[in-house]
């Protein structure tokens, strides 16, 4: 695959793909046991006042269509398996945004018996947004952080095959 990635055609394709991913990441939202607070704030970011769609972020119904998984809440015993299943169903590359203090560490629910842990213990998390719940602006800030980090992280990823290709 690495060899193929070096071809100019592949490079161009990668660039287009990255551009598309950064400019229009589709998201899916899952509540793994939160109090709804974060969920309504996520909804609020999609409505006219905050309008996350300015960044091309669109909330999708199916994990198959999504690049970003926004998870709220600590992971309960019952939703752990569902969360894993949704994560597995998402196509690569995928990014996870953990939203709200309880999703980051358990928050107010620390030590309750039906909680298996925070989100990062179940699936890898790309961006953490603390707050209980975070304001819609803070959520937008978190999404922007993710997009920025993608831009940065992608730069070497695109360049890397070229460097490998150069000696060959």
């Amino acid at each position, binding site marked *: 695959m690495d060899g193929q990635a070096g071809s100019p055609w592949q490079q161009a394709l990668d660039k287009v793909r990255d551009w598309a991913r950064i400019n229009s990441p589709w998201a899916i939202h899952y509540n793994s046991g939160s109090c709804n607070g974060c969920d309504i704030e996520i909804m609020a970011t999609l409505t006219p006042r905050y309008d996350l769609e300015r960044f091309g972020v669109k909330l999708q119904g199916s994990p198959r269509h999504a690049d970003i998984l926004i998870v709220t809440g600590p992971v*309960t*015993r*019952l939703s752990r398996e569902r969360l894993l299943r949704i994560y597995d169903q998402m196509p690569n590359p995928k990014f996870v945004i953990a939203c709200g203090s309880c999703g980051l560490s358990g928050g107010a629910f*620390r*030590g309750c*018996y*039906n909680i298996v*842990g925070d989100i990062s213990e179940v699936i890898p998390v790309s961006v953490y947004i603390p707050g209980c719940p975070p304001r819609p602006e803070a959520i937008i800030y978190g999404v922007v952080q993710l997009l920025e980090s993608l831009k940065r992280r992608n730069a070497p990823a695109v360049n890397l095959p070229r460097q490998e290709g150069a000696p060959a």
Partner: protein
Amino acid sequence: MDTSTALEKAAAILQPWALATATPEPNRLDVVIERGSLIPAVKALVKARWGFFSALTGLDQPPSGDGEPVREGCVEVLYHFCSAAAVVTLRVSVPYSDAKIDSICEVIPSATLYERELIEMFGVECTGTPNTERLLLSDDWPEGVYPLRKSFTGFQQAEGQEANHGSAA
């Protein structure tokens, strides 16, 4: 109908089955009844159209300790009926050794959700409740572990270590 007349009326309805009554607060009436008389008592309340079935509470009474005559552990099941400001509570005691109670679903069909909760949380079997599938707990929850009993103190896991770590630092 003001609160005190409503409570008097309820007391009159429940009188045949009452083992003891109490009014812990001005708007409340607690009636202790036998397990067997639950259905007729509930039926009487529903037939008289006294209020509505509001909630079902389980209350764990672990076996009392040494010294006093040892009392067997039991689960107290509380059926709350509300009519305006008045609240009538039917209190039924169910011992651990024979944790069974009749389901009131035939009289109040919507009670099934509360009963399923009671079954899972306290391990009290509700004879005759239509559906006994898991409602709240996960499917891999161990059998015979009832989280709201006092004897359940949680799964020993990360939080214990966390606390130790915090105090050590």
